[in-house]
C-alpha cells in the first residue's frame, strides 16, 4: 500500500537534516493554499526557525480551474538561520493539480530533485482529457528531474469531509507538519486561532483534517526533514507578521489616529488590518471616495494638528500628485505609504516592482522637495512609519514611505517592539501663539519653522498652495518665490546633515564591485554577496533607506570600489539589446539618482519580471559583471 505512493523511493529514507528548505503549496485560487502556508510559517517561526513566506497570487479573483495562469499558492522558506528572502528553487512542493505547476516551472521555481507531492485524483477523472493531461504532465515532470509522489489526498480527505475542496488545505498543513516534524499542538492552536470566528464544528473539522494529514504522511511517506531551530534568542520576544500588517502596527505605534485610504492592490490589506483593530487605540480608517479625496482628507486632518497617514500604490500615488505638492508647498506634515506594484498604468497589480522611486521624489510639477524613505525589511515597515511621522512633523513636510508587494505579503519573525509613550504623537498644542511670529517663521539656516494649529489663540493664518511669504500671504514677486523654494529645499539639507553614512556589507575597505540596492531586495542581495565572497570575489553591497535626501558619504564610499552597480526591480535597457548604446541607454531609477548626485559612472542591473529578486539570480549577475570587468582590464 505504501509503495503505491512512492514514485521514487530513492528520495525517501528516514529523517534528513537540512540547514534550510523551501516549500511551496500551489493550487487553484480559493483552495486555501495560502492559509495553510501562512499557518505552517507561523508554526515554524514559533518553533524557532527563520522563516520567509511569499504568496503566489493570480491577478484575477476567479481564474479558470486547473490552468497555469490561475496558479495560487505560497512559498515558505525555512532556515536554521535568519531568513531574509524567498531563496531560489524550491525543495518540496505540494500541488493540488498538475496544471498549476506549469506556471511555477516557467518561473524557474523548481530544480532537478525537487520533491513534488501531487494530488492524484485527476488520474481517474471522468473526463478523458483531464486524465490525459495529468499523465502527460507527470511524465514531463519526471523527465525534467522532479521527484513526483502521486498522492490520493482528496480521497483521504473524503473520509472526513464530503467536500475536500474547502478542507484539503488543512490536510496538507498536517502533512507538512509531519514532514518537517512540527509540533502538532502548536499547529492545532494556530488552526483554532485562524478559525476563531467560526463555529466550533468548523474548528473541529479542520483539526481532524490536520490530524489526518499528519497521520497520512506518517503512514505513507517514508521520509522527513529536520530544519534545526535558530540558536536560543534569550529574553528577546518576536512577532510574526507580513509587511502590510507591520505597516498597520507602525501606524498605531506612531500615534497617528487617522488612516485615509482608497482600496488599491497590494496596499489595501494594511487598511484591512487597521480596520479590525484601530479602534482599540482610538484610531479610525476613512475609506474615501477616491485617491485624491483620501489624501485630501489626510491633509485636512494633518493641518488641524492630527498628522494622518494615507496608504496607496503606484496608480494611487499618481492621482495624489497635486495634493502631495500642496503638502510640500504649504508645509503640511503627512505620511504617505506606497506599497509598490508593477507599472506603468494598471500594470501588474499583485506583483512586485520598485518603479515608483523617481515618481516619489520628482513626481510633481515644479520643485517639490520631500522626504522619501524605503523599508528594506518587514520590521522596517513597522518602525519606519513611526520615523516618518516624526520626520513629517519635525520637518513640516510630507514623507513618502516606500514598501512593495514582496514586503507586503512576505511573512517573517522579527523582534517584538516594546512601545513607549514617546512613540505616540503628543496631544495637539493649543497654547496661545505669539501673533508677532509669522506662520512660516523660517530659520534661514535650516528652513525649519514652528507650525500654528487651529485652536491656538493668535495663531490664525490662511494656508495656501499659491506662492507665499512667511506670513502665508499670497505673493507673486520674485524674491518671495525664490525664498520659499530655498526654505523648503533647505529642510532636506538639514535632514541630510543628521544622517549617518550607510554601512557597507562585506568589506568596508573597498573591492572590485559594490552593489547598491534599496527596498525589499536587501536579503537577496546580501545572500548573493555572501556566496560571491565565499568564492573569493571582492564584492560588497550597500543598501539605502533614505532616498530623499540621500544618505551622506556616498561618493567617498563609492570611491573605494572599482565599479558600482545598482540592482533593482525596475526597468533599465539591457546594454546588449538592439539599438542600445552607452549614450541612449535608459538606466534604472536608483542609478539615475546616484549618477546625477555623485557624477560617478554607476552601472545598473535591473529586471521587471514581476517577482522578487532571488539570491541565485543576483549571484550570477555579480559573477558575470566581475568577469566582464576582468575582460576589460
Amino acid at each position, binding site marked *: 500500500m505504501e509503495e503505491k505512493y512512492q514514485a521514487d523511493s530513492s528520495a525517501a529514507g528516514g529523517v534528513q537534516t537540512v540547514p534550510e528548505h523551501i516549500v511551496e503549496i500551489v493550487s487553484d485560487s480559493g483552495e486555501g493554499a495560502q492559509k495553510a502556508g501562512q499557518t505552517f510559517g507561523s508554526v515554524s517561526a514559533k518553533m524557532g526557525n527563520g522563516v520567509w513566506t511569499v504568496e503566489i497570487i493570480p491577478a484575477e479573483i476567479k481564474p479558470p480551474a486547473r490552468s497555469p495562469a490561475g496558479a495560487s499558492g505560497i512559498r515558505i522558506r525555512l532556515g536554521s538561520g535568519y531568513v531574509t528572502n524567498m531563496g531560489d528553487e524550491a525543495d518540496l512542493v505540494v500541488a493540488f493539480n498538475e496544471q498549476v505547476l506549469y506556471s511555477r516551472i516557467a518561473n524557474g521555481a523548481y530544480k532537478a530533485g525537487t520533491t513534488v507531492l501531487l494530488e492524484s485524483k485527476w488520474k481517474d477523472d471522468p473526463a478523458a482529457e483531464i486524465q490525459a493531461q495529468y499523465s502527460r504532465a507527470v511524465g514531463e515532470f519526471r523527465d525534467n528531474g522532479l521527484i513526483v509522489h502521486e498522492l490520493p489526498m482528496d480521497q483521504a480527505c473524503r473520509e472526513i469531509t464530503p467536500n475536500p475542496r474547502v478542507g484539503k488545505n488543512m490536510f496538507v498543513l498536517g502533512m507538512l507538519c509531519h514532514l518537517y516534524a512540527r509540533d502538532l499542538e502548536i499547529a492545532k492552536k494556530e488552526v483554532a486561532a485562524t478559525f476563531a470566528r467560526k463555529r466550533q464544528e468548523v474548528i473541529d473539522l479542520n483539526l481532524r483534517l490536520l490530524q489526518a494529514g499528519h497521520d497520512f504522511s506518517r503512514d505513507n511517506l517514508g521520509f522527513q526533514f529536520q530544519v534545526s531551530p535558530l540558536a536560543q534568542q534569550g529574553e528577546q*520576544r518576536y512577532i510574526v507578521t507580513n509587511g502590510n500588517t507591520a505597516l498597520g502596527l507602525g501606524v498605531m505605534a506612531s500615534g497617528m489616529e487617522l488612516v*485615509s485610504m482608497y482600496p488599491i492592490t497590494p496596499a489595501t490589506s494594511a487598511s484591512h488590518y487597521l480596520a479590525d483593530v484601530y479602534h482599540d*487605540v482610538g484610531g479610525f480608517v476613512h475609506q474615501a471616495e*477616491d485617491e485624491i479625496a483620501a489624501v485630501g482628507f489626510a491633509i485636512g*486632518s494633518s493641518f488641524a494638528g492630527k498628522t*494622518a497617514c494615507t496608504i496607496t500604490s503606484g496608480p494611487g500615488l499618481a492621482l495624489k500628485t497635486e495634493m502631495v505638492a500642496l503638502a510640500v508647498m504649504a508645509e503640511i506634515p503627512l505620511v504617505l505609504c506606497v506599497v509598490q506594484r508593477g507599472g506603468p498604468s494598471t500594470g501588474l497589480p499583485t506583483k512586485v516592482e520598485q518603479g515608483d522611486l523617481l515618481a516619489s521624489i520628482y513626481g510633481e510639477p515644479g520643485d517639490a522637495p520631500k522626504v522619501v524613505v524605503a523599508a528594506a525589511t518587514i520590521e522596517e515597515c513597522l518602525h519606519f512609519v513611526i520615523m516618518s511621522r516624526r520626520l513629517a512633523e519635525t520637518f513640516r513636510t510630507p514623507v513618502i514611505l516606500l514598501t512593495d508587494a514582496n514586503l507586503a505579503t512576505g511573512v517573517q519573525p522579527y523582534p517584538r517592539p516594546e512601545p513607549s509613550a514617546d512613540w505616540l504623537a503628543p496631544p495637539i498644542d493649543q497654547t496661545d501663539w505669539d501673533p508677532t511670529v509669522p506662520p512660516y517663521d523660517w530659520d534661514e539656516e535650516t528652513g525649519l519653522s514652528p507650525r500654528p494649529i487651529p485652536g491656538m489663540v493668535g495663531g490664525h493664518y*490662511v*494656508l495656501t498652495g499659491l506662492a507665499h511669504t512667511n506670513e502665508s500671504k499670497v505673493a507673486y514677486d520674485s524674491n518671495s518665490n525664490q525664498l520659499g523654494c530655498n526654505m523648503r529645499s533647505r529642510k532636506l539639507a538639514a535632514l541630510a546633515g543628521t544622517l549617518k553614512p550607510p554601512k557597507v556589507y562585506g568589506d568596508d575597505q573597498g573591492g572590485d564591485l559594490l552593489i547598491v540596492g534599496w527596498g525589499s531586495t536587501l536579503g537577496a542581495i546580501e545572500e548573493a554577496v555572501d556566496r560571491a565572497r565565499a568564492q573569493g570575489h571582492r564584492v560588497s553591497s550597500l543598501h539605502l533607506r533614505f532616498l530623499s535626501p540621500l544618505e551622506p558619504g556616498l561618493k567617498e564610499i563609492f570611491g573605494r570600489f572599482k565599479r558600482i552597480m545598482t540592482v533593482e526591480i525596475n526597468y533599465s535597457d539591457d546594454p546588449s539589446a538592439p539599438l542600445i548604446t552607452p549614450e541612449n541607454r535608459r538606466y534604472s531609477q536608483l542609478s539615475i539618482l546616484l549618477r546625477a548626485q555623485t557624477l560617478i559612472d554607476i552601472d545598473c542591473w535591473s529586471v521587471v519580471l514581476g517577482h522578487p529578486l532571488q539570491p541565485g539570480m543576483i549571484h550570477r549577475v555579480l559573477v558575470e559583471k566581475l568577469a566582464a570587468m576582468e575582460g576589460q582590464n
Partner: protein
Amino acid sequence: MFGMKADWSLEVFERYFTIGDYAGGEARWCPGCGDHGILTAVQKILRDEQVPPERTVAVSGIGCSSRMPHYLGTFGFHGLHGRALPIACGIKSRRPELDVWVATGDGDCFSIGTAHWIHAIRYNMDMTLMVFDNGVYGLTKAQTSPTSPLGFKTNTHPGGAILPPHNPLTVTLGITNASFVAQVVDWSPPLMYEVLKAAHRHRGTGFVRIIQRCPVYADSLSKAMQSDPSKVLLLHHEKGIPIDPAVKRQFPNQIEHDPSNLSAARDVAQNDTLIPVGLLYQNPDAICYETLSSQGIEFTTKRRLAGLNAALDRFTI
C-alpha cells in the same frame, strides 16, 4: 456670607468679538461682485454667534469664490481646485469642535469637484457649504461653467453654451443623507444672512447655493434675474427660515413649502422657470460622519499603549 457661594462668579464674556475680529486681508474681488456681500454675511454671523476666530476654519478650492479665506480673520485653507471638501472633511474628522466653513464655486464644486460634492453631502459633516454660483468661470476669464445657461456666450463656447445647465439642487436633493439644502441670491442680503445662519446652526452639512452676480463676465445673467423679481420664488414655512418683511416685498412670488418634505423639495428644485430661494429641505437627524470618524479622540496615552500592546501580543511568538 449673605448666602452667596464662595465659588460664585459673574458670567463675564472675557472675549467679545467684533466684526473687526473676523476681518482678514482687503477683499480683491471686482467692484460689484456678489462675493463681497457673502463675506459680509459670514462675518456678521460669526460675530452674532460669537464663534472664536481661532476655532473657525474657512476652507476653499480655487476660483474667485475660493479667495474668501484670505479675507477672513480666522484660520483658512486655500486648497486645490475642486478639493475643498475632502480637506474640510479631514479637518473636521478628528477635530469635531472646529467650526468649518467651505467656500466653493460652480466650477470648483459642480465640475472638477463633483465626486467630492456628492460624497461630502453623504458624509454630512457639521459644516457650512457655500457654493458661489455665478454661472461662469471668472478667475480664468469667461469659460462656460456647468451652470451657464444654454446659449450663454463664453470664450470656450463663443457661439453660446451648447448644453442645458446642470441643476445643482436636484442633484443635491438626490444624495442619500442630504440634510440641509437651501438657495439664495446675493442681492437679498437679509435673506442670505438668515439662510446662512440657519445653515451654520444646522447640525450636518448646510448646503447653500448662492446665486451670485459676476458683473464682469456674466452681467447679463444676474441683470435678467434682478430686473424681473417675479422669476424668483420665495419659500416660506413656519418650520423654515424667518423671512424679513423687506424680503417678502422684494419677492412677491411666494409659496408655502414644508422643508421636512423631501419629495416636495425635489418638486420645487425641478422647476426650471422659477428660481426658488429659501430653505428647500432640512433633516436635523441625519447621521454626521464625524461622530464616527472622531471615535477614540479622548483616549489616554495609557489606553492607546494598552491597545497597541494587545495588538502586538496577537502576533507574538
